[in-house]
């Protein structure tokens, strides 16, 4: 049966580094020609390392062992570097998540795409050039002649990703490996890239998709392998794994996706937490917080924040003023969550910074409890700041690198006038609110996981007892299980403390889950606003419909 040799055969693959000796711990799978397999898992599950063993790029200091590691029947385990070079690019194409850092900034993209052609095909210079334009057109880049001469920074994120895919498929590889190919992209662009990958799949090319995003996988893969702690916990046809999962972990992972839940339901469950985290931190990270006293619903019609006709423009590098926020108005009431959703560059973050008083609008006003920000003296403004706090996407960069957790939160506690042991007690209390124990006081941010860092950031934001917390993409950098815990935590805190959230996200699923009301922003304008249920079920504006249509949801699985 020599004609049905699978393209890729992996049996009992083990790979690791000095720091993580068992990053991949006994993985086996086969990939046939024309088939698309997805490796799904959270960060640290070993999915990327597994994919990289197939191109011999696990990096210096890594060890790769396997009972069998074959590409097209040939044993590639321990292949010398020189022979790898004949496989990479020629027979296996590799697409990475971040197109900006994967493309040479000093080379026009056309030259980048011509590189594999030069190395692996006998094409002449002129034929190569023609083929590059052909490839760019094939991946849907408009005006290929113009684009081929441009540098990566001159292209948008979507075009860069297309160019990267073009260079990966240039030499006609039999296998295309895509590691988080759409993670850094806006939803509408993401939908286009997924459509492009789907087209490529129809040929003879096999595909190995690595992703944390179940909805991406649902659209592309024929088969799915769910990875956790270096092992495959479940493997099978896509419809079966996503529709009728057998393993507890897969079930929990699917349940943690916020799009499938209404507001008020919990997302996280014990099955999602890696075993060693449970050992280390106890079940506390999942518990409900009875310590929070339920605040009586302060049902006043008086908004905490009123934003009226906010306009802000910035001078671009070409000295032309670009309007980033073009007339945004909204009210935020006590204890509610207002979601702002939009793609990158829509002005979400600038709007939030104006509300926080960190940016002065060109025109328009922000009123806090009936007092205008711009009418306050600097001293009065400082005193008001503690009523509005902020949680950033990247908590690490929001902490002074020299500070311990105790000093980070303590500095914010000090704003309320507490000193000495009272300050320390309050710091411990705040840590407890976010389900971290006092043992974390002396840790530095670098010694915390992403989820723990975000918890510390939330504790700091709570310290001055604010009425409003601006959450700027607070869960975008987190794994779906950690995201679920943080969203649950934010919901608990709101219920207990009555704090209002201005919640910014590009992720419609997250926005749907957390918000009471939603603003949809595009190019600095609010295109639609209203009750979350109404926006999501009956969008009025064309753009909102396009945005919702572009979301790859699990229900759109084949």
């Amino acid at each position, binding site marked *: 049966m020599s004609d049905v040799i699978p393209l890729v055969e992996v049996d009992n693959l083990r790979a690791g580094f000095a720091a993580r000796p068992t990053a991949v711990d006994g993985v086996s799978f086969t990939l046939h020609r024309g088939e698309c397999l997805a490796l799904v898992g959270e960060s640290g599950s070993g999915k990327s390392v597994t994919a990289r063993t197939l191109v011999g790029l696990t990096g210096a200091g890594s060890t790769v062992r396997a009972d069998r590691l074959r590409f097209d029947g040939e044993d590639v385990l321990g292949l010398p570097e020189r022979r790898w070079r004949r496989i990479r690019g020629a027979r296996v194409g590799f697409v990475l998540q971040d197109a900006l850092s994967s493309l040479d900034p000093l080379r026009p993209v056309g030259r980048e795409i011509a590189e594999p052609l030069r190395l692996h095909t006998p094409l002449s210079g002129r034929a190569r050039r023609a083929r590059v334009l052909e490839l760019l057109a094939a991946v849907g880049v408009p005006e290929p002649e113009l684009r081929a001469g441009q540098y990566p920074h001159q292209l948008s994120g979507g075009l860069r990703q297309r160019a990267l895919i073009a260079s990966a498929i240039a030499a006609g590889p039999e296998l295309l490996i895509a590691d988080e190919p759409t993670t850094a992209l806006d939803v509408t662009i993401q939908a286009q890239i997924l459509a492009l990958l789907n087209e490529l799949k129809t040929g003879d090319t096999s595909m190995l998709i690595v992703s944390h995003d179940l909805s991406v996988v649902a659209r592309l893969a024929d088969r799915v392998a769910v990875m956790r702690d270096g092992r495959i916990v479940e493997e099978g046809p896509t419809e079966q794994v996503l529709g009728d999962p057998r393993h507890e972990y897969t079930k929990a992972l699917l349940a943690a996706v916020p799009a499938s839940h209404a507001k008020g339901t919990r997302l996280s469950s014990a099955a999602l937490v890696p075993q060693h985290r449970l050992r280390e931190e106890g079940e506390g990270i999942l518990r409900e917080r009875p310590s929070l006293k339920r605040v009586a619903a302060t049902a006043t019609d008086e908004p905490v924040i009123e934003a009226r006709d906010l306009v802000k423009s910035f001078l671009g590098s070409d000295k032309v003023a670009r309007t980033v926020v073009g007339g945004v108005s909204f009210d935020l009431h006590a204890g509610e969550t207002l979601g702002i959703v939009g793609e990158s560059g829509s002005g979400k973050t600038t709007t939030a910074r104006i509300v926080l008083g*960190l940016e002065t609008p060109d025109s328009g006003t922000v009123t806090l409890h009936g007092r205008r920000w711009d009418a306050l003296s600097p001293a009065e403004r400082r005193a008001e700041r503690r009523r509005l706090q902020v949680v950033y996407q990247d908590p690490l960069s929001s902490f002074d690198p020299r500070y311990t957790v105790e000093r980070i939160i303590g*500095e914010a506690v000090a704003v309320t006038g507490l000193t000495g042991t009272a300050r320390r007690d309050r710091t411990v209390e705040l840590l407890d609110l976010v389900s971290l124990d006092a043992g974390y006081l002396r840790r530095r941010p670098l010694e915390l996981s992403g989820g723990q860092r975000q918890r510390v950031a939330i504790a700091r934001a709570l310290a001055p007892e604010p009425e409003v917390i601006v959450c700027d993409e607070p869960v975008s950098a987190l794994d779906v299980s950690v995201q679920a815990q943080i969203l649950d935590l934010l919901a608990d805190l709101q219920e207990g403390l009555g704090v209002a959230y201005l919640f910014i996200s590009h992720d419609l699923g997250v926005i749907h889950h957390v918000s009471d009301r939603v603003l949809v922003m595009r190019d600095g304008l609010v295109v639609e606003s209203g009750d979350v249920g109404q926006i999501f079920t009956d969008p009025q504006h064309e753009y909102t419909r396009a945005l919702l249509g572009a979301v790859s949801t699990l229900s759109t699985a084949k």
Partner: protein
Amino acid sequence: MTALSLTVPRVSARLRGWRVRPGLVLGVAFLVLLVIAAIAPALLTSHDPLEISTDGAFLPPGGDHLLGTDQSGRDILARMVHGARSSLVMGLGATAIGVTVGAAVGLLAGLANRFVEGALMRLVDVTLSVPDLLMALVVIALLGTGTVNALFAVAFASIPYYARMLRAQTHVVRRATYVEAATALGLPRWTVIRRHVLPNAFKPLIVLATIGIGNAIGAGASLSFLGLGTKPPAPEWGNMLSLGIQYISNDWTMVAIPGLAITLTVLSVTVVGRDLKRRSEGRAV
């Protein structure tokens, strides 16, 4: 990412940092020797650096005079050991002054409005465009020669480097999210600057200053060599080198020894400074 897998690489990185690098060990050893010579020269030599011995001039290395004697019959080793102090004082003193003034200028530029910043930085650019040694010569021409004036001259020439660096750092740190987070807490501007901007902006400056010490020692020796710094017969490597040149046909060791000492000192300081720099950048050492 889990806490477990995050802490493990940190530990191994720290261990790797302790791997013995021969160049670094030699550099540190030489600097330790230099500090001993500067603090307690009597531990390393029993001769007086100024005493004209009766054993004779131009003695070759060996015997009672380990490195020989110079044209007046003075012990070269004693002069070398006693000269270490003035080299170190030059290196540390000039760098301290340069860093202090440079940091003040850079910080002011980094925090002030655009006009003050523009004026300060153009001034810095002008000084930067003149070669260091030439700038030092201009200062000496204004102040006159001598040990202290040479120190000021070398310090002055180093100011623009530190000013530029600290201004750039201040700009970077000012825009950091953690500074914004502190502002959002309602902390007064100066508290934010004192607590978060200053310490974080200064960190890379310390490393640059270490490397700067080596340059200052070299520059100080150059000035003395030209007869503009410490005057003979006081023991100083630069003027020993300058004297030695006159007798190079009689005794080449009079040139080789101070020359080697200056080279090794600057080299050692640079090796140690670069190592600190790499560590502070978190790179594999």
